[in-house]
């Protein structure tokens, strides 16, 4: 699928792995972080751009600005967007995390090519876009000239069989793949199969976003009925989805049966080949200081819903900070209407404004040395969320919420089963 998009956008009949192609790009996203006036970022202002309508400035990494550096970057971003007439400017309070916004507002459509300076751009693969992150200098060049280049990679296919079991989420599917298959550096990833079709869009988006952590380049999923319905609910703009050819060549094809997957937890510092089952870790009662739900991968309405369901009528454990950061302003609003935010706050959770926040370790939940955190965000690297001497475990938002109540890293399944039983009784 990726090769077809690259061939189309570079005007070639076909492309092969190893080849370098020059293309234009349908959606160019500049995060607020681009506008820092450092030498390797944007030392002087951009004077002109090739296709202003294709450029979106999405303020997300530090919103609202936590310091003068970011306040200056935001000011420059606004000035650029206005002067150069960018297609979309997500102002503070009117946007959210870029990958969530691309998905929610369908800023890119199936078959299109998407680039951003942020590494988790693979998130847009859920919309059948060919999307990946570039370097800081690359994205500035792309914004200016309208062109960039890609080295064509070989593709690995994951065929998902079965269906997503009760209490298992997109994050668990990723953790399962990270444990079994590890890093896929130098490759694009494509997903397909009935298992994928059984997954709600939020879970697919989580999986597509997290493939960045497998060191993949482009990540793509097919535009099936669910994807097309989502797009139709947002826009009637035309698009042409890409499908994999019957005889497409793959570097490897892996078959994953979703029925085999259970709740997983990544141990601190790495995800690939560093995952254990939540039920076994739950027995060790590893005490936590902070629980975090958020990021472009898991700040979705479904994440806030499962967290609210789990903590409803209960209290966050003594000594634990439970921070919940919605992925976008729209999710924040929906969660208010649906009562999730009230439920979370009543249980003792702190619900923040929509931003990358604690995920990037910049603000809104930074960890001190010696602290232990469980997160449903994207990275558990050493020092990612603050001190390099903090430990970060990673799981689904259900696992994070269950841990916030328990005060230690917990298996979410007992809480989820209890919820299901109560729902059945009342039905």
């Amino acid at each position: 699928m990726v090769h077809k998009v690259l061939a189309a956008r570079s005007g070639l009949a076909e492309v092969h792995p190893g080849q370098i192609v020059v293309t234009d790009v349908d959606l160019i996203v500049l995060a607020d972080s681009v506008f820092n006036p450092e030498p390797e970022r944007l030392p002087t202002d951009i004077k002109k751009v090739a296709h202003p309508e294709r450029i979106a400035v999405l303020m997300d990494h530090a919103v609202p600005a936590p310091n003068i550096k970011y306040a200056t970057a935001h000011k420059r971003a606004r000035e650029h967007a206005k002067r150069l007439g960018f297609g979309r400017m997500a102002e503070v309070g009117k946007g959210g995390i870029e990958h969530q916004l691309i998905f929610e507002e369908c800023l890119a459509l199936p078959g299109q090519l998407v680039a951003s300076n942020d590494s988790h751009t693979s998130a847009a693969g859920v919309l059948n876009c060919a999307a990946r992150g570039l370097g800081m200098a690359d994205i500035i060049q792309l914004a200016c000239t309208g062109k960039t280049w890609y080295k064509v990679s070989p593709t690995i296919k994951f065929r998902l069989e079965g269906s997503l079991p009760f209490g298992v989420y997109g994050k668990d599917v990723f953790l399962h793949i990270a444990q079994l298959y590890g890093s896929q550096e130098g490759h694009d990833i494509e997903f397909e199969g009935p298992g994928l079709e059984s997954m709600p869009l939020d879970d697919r988006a989580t999986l597509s976003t997290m493939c960045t952590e497998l060191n993949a380049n482009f990540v793509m999923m097919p535009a099936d009925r669910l994807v097309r319905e989502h797009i139709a609910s947002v826009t009637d703009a035309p698009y042409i989805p890409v499908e994999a050819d019957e005889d497409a060549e793959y570097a490897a094809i892996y078959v994953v049966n979703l029925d085999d997957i259970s709740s997983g937890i990544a141990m601190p510092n790495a995800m690939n080949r560093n995952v254990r089952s939540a039920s076994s870790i739950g027995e060790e009662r590893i005490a936590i200081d902070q629980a975090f739900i958020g990021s472009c991968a898991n700040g979705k309405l479904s994440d806030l819903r499962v967290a609210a369901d789990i903590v409803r009528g209960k209290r966050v454990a003594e000594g634990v900070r439970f921070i919940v950061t919605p992925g976008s302003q729209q999710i924040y609003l929906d969660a208010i209407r649906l009562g999730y935010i009230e439920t979370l706050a009543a249980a003792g959770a702190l619900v923040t404004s929509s931003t990358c926040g604690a995920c990037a370790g910049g603000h809104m939940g930074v960890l001190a040395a010696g602290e232990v955190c469980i997160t449903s965000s994207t990275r558990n690297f050493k020092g990612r969320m603050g001190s390099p001497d903090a430990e970060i475990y990673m799981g689904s938002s259900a696992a994070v919420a269950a841990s916030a109540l328990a005060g230690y890293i917990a298996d979410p399944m007992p809480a989820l089963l209890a919820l299901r039983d109560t729902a059945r009784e009342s039905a």
Partner: protein
Amino acid sequence: MSTLTGKAWVIPNDYINTDAMMPHRGYDMAPREQESLVLATIRPGWAMLVQPGDILITGRAFGTGSSRPAPTMLTRLGIAAVVSESVGEIFFRNCVSYALPVLELPGVLSIVTEGDTVSVDIELGTFDNRTTGVSARGEAMPSMLLDTIAAGGTHAVLRRDGYL
């Protein structure tokens, strides 16, 4: 772009990451001290032996990991070009952006011994070991990327063309 000829250094390890070239602990150090840390965990003392114009030969997936501008550390040492079995994706892009000529050449480790005089032409994708007379060929680099390197990197190109 012309052919570059220089003395080959061979650091054959696979998966050398950008932390090894540009470790975080060097960020606040004086320039010379920071340069001495380049690949120091893999080959202590090497960084200070590099002469301007030398060519670095490396193993698979050179420059994996973080997207930090690690090529700038190699150019500061005087490395004129990198020829690797394969190169990490973002590192390759950064080599172009920060003007370090780079060639991916599977099999290169088997045709070079450290100290050989080698030539590389990234425009043609050619590699010659002048000491042994053995040649090999990789992918030629497209003109857009060559222009960037020749002009001194992405920021320089954008300034030249009136974008910045």
